[in-house]
């Protein structure tokens, strides 16, 4: 079985637990802050001096939980991740809100202090592994470097440990591959190297930004299984950014849907898939295509595209594309409870009956 069980029996969608059971557990985890979340983002606003790109985002991820962040490009998913990692680059900056890692406030920490936390307590995996690796250094050494810096291992011990990690992430002939340069490896292999690097110091949090998007389905399936298994083993919390709802179905315990900088819906993965409440979530669900579902007919598409942040409509940002939009939508809807496990920011939540 490759299903995750959270340390506190918390928000995990666990094994044969019925939908209701899973949803209640997720709700309990949301209401009851007793298990300290690994990542806690509150009221995060990110932007430049002129325009806000991420608005008032709050997220919580429990130990061993996988939260999937979904939405179209330009909705602020990646910026939210970068802000969590303290990796925003001028002119984009955090304008308000806080980011806590296991209760420790990260916003406001100096770069020196942040560098001690990044790589050791939290790690990030990016979409393009080839671009994230140093092209002129052997991959084994790149992984060993993290261990030398954060765990003060000797060069020899770090190299040995890197080879062990390569073995663990399913790289065949790990000792030989550790001596390879990135260009000598396939995309899937490079992504395994990135995962080995992220896991090197057994971080409490892994942020994966479209980590499997560039991979073939067979490689993607292997990498997802691998991440899930490793998560079970070391109890890491994961934030997984993806636009592929199939990947969400595959690995998520909970889901947060972003649109134009805001979270418009959150909930357990079962809740969001069974009863998407926000018209945007419904739209995303409706235009999914699956090879095993009967084909044919026209696809339900969401008309238009995500507005540029500077041209974001007042009130509900989705109203320019929403089939349900009417007068109340000129007021900004707040996130409010919906169903057993969800929260939704919409004046007309749920499917029309």
């Amino acid at each position, binding site marked *: 079985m490759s299903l995750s069980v959270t340390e506190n029996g918390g928000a995990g969608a666990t094994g044969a637990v019925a939908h209701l059971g899973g949803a209640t557990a997720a709700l309990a985890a949301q209401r009851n802050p007793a298990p300290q979340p690994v990542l806690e983002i509150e009221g995060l606003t990110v932007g430049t001096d002129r325009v806000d790109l991420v608005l008032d985002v709050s997220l919580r991820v429990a130990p061993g939980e996988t939260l999937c962040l979904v939405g179209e490009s330009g909705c602020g998913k990646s910026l939210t991740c970068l802000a969590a990692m303290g990796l925003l680059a001028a002119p984009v900056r955090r304008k308000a809100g806080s980011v806590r890692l296991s209760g420790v406030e990260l916003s406001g920490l100096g770069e020196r202090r942040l560098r001690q936390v990044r790589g050791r307590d939290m790690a990030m995996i990016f979409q393009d592994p080839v671009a994230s690796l140093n092209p002129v250094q052997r991959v084994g050494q790149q992984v060993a470097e993290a261990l030398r810096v954060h765990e003060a291992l000797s060069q020899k011990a770090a190299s040995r440990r890197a080879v062990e990690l390569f073995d663990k992430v399913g790289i065949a002939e790990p000792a030989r591959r550790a001596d390879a340069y990135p260009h000598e490896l396939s*995309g899937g292999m490079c992504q395994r190297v990135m995962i080995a690097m992220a896991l090197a110091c057994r971080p409490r949090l892994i942020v994966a930004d479209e980590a499997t998007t560039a991979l073939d389905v067979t490689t993607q399936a292997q990498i997802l299984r691998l991440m899930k298994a490793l998560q079970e083993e070391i109890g890491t919390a994961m934030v997984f950014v993806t636009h*592929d709802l*199939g990947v969400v179905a*595959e690995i998520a315990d909970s889901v947060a849907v972003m649109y134009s900088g805001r979270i418009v819906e959150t909930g357990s993965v079962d809740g969001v898939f069974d009863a998407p409440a926000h018209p945007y979530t419904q739209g995303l669900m409706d235009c*999914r295509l699956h090879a095993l579902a009967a084909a044919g007919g026209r696809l339900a598409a969401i008309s238009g595209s995500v507005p540029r942040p500077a041209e974001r409509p007042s009130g509900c940002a989705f109203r320019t594309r929403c089939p349900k939009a009417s007068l109340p939508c000129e007021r900004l809807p707040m996130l409010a409870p919906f169903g057993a496990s969800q929260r939704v920011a919409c004046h007309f939540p749920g499917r029309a009956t």
Partner: protein
Amino acid sequence: MTGPLLRMDGVGRHYRSGGWLSRATVTKAVDGVDLTLAAGETLGIVGESGSGKSTLGRLAAGIEMPSAGTVAFDDAPYAPIDSAAWRRQRRRVQVIFQNPSQAVDPRLPIVTQICGAMAAHRIDPGAGRAGRAEAMLERVGLGGLGSRYPHQLSGGQLQRAVIARALALGPEFIVCDEAVSALDVSVQAQILNLLQDLQAEFGLAFLFISHDLGVVRHVSHRIAVMQRGRLVEDGPAHAVFDRPQHPYTQQLIAALPAASPAARRARATARPAAA
């Protein structure tokens, strides 16, 4: 017309590398492929990266010549690249690539680029050209945006502009090489709907190359599965996906992400500890 629009017989494309100081090696990107495509039909090509899908697409479009076998379009083999006959054939066969921003000139308004393509093929000389370009933009949902430059359009809009440019030449056959892969799902759905409408309207034949099996199933009448340069399975879309015969096709389908969390659990119960 009696025969198929496109016919490939024993087509191979081999690349030679090394051979000066090292021993020469031959890579068979495409190897012994037979396939046909009828007018108005969509043939989907699936396979992993490196399986030869794109090379097959280039051969089918006649922008690459086979090392072995023949590629015939409308019963005649493609003329040598850059010959006058080849240039005339270009009008009838178009290609839409994955990244629209690399398929347009960043310094020209899109309507100018559409007119440029028509000028190259001497279509509608004079004032008619701008009118036809505008009509095509209207048809793909970009009415009134012709004076925009590529950077002023979103990825989905730009891909529509590329489709309008291809359409303006009145092609019969379009190779779509990962044409919707870079787009968000919502925009992807818009473009797929558009391509299907255009097929019905103009009787276009598509060779639809994608690594996304869901997309391919949705648009294709028939599907061919490629592995290491060879076709390992082909047939009607539903047959290939519902009753895959070849182990590689079965493997591809088994690797697909679940459609829902419930489907994931059902699969986990059915196949505990899948390797």
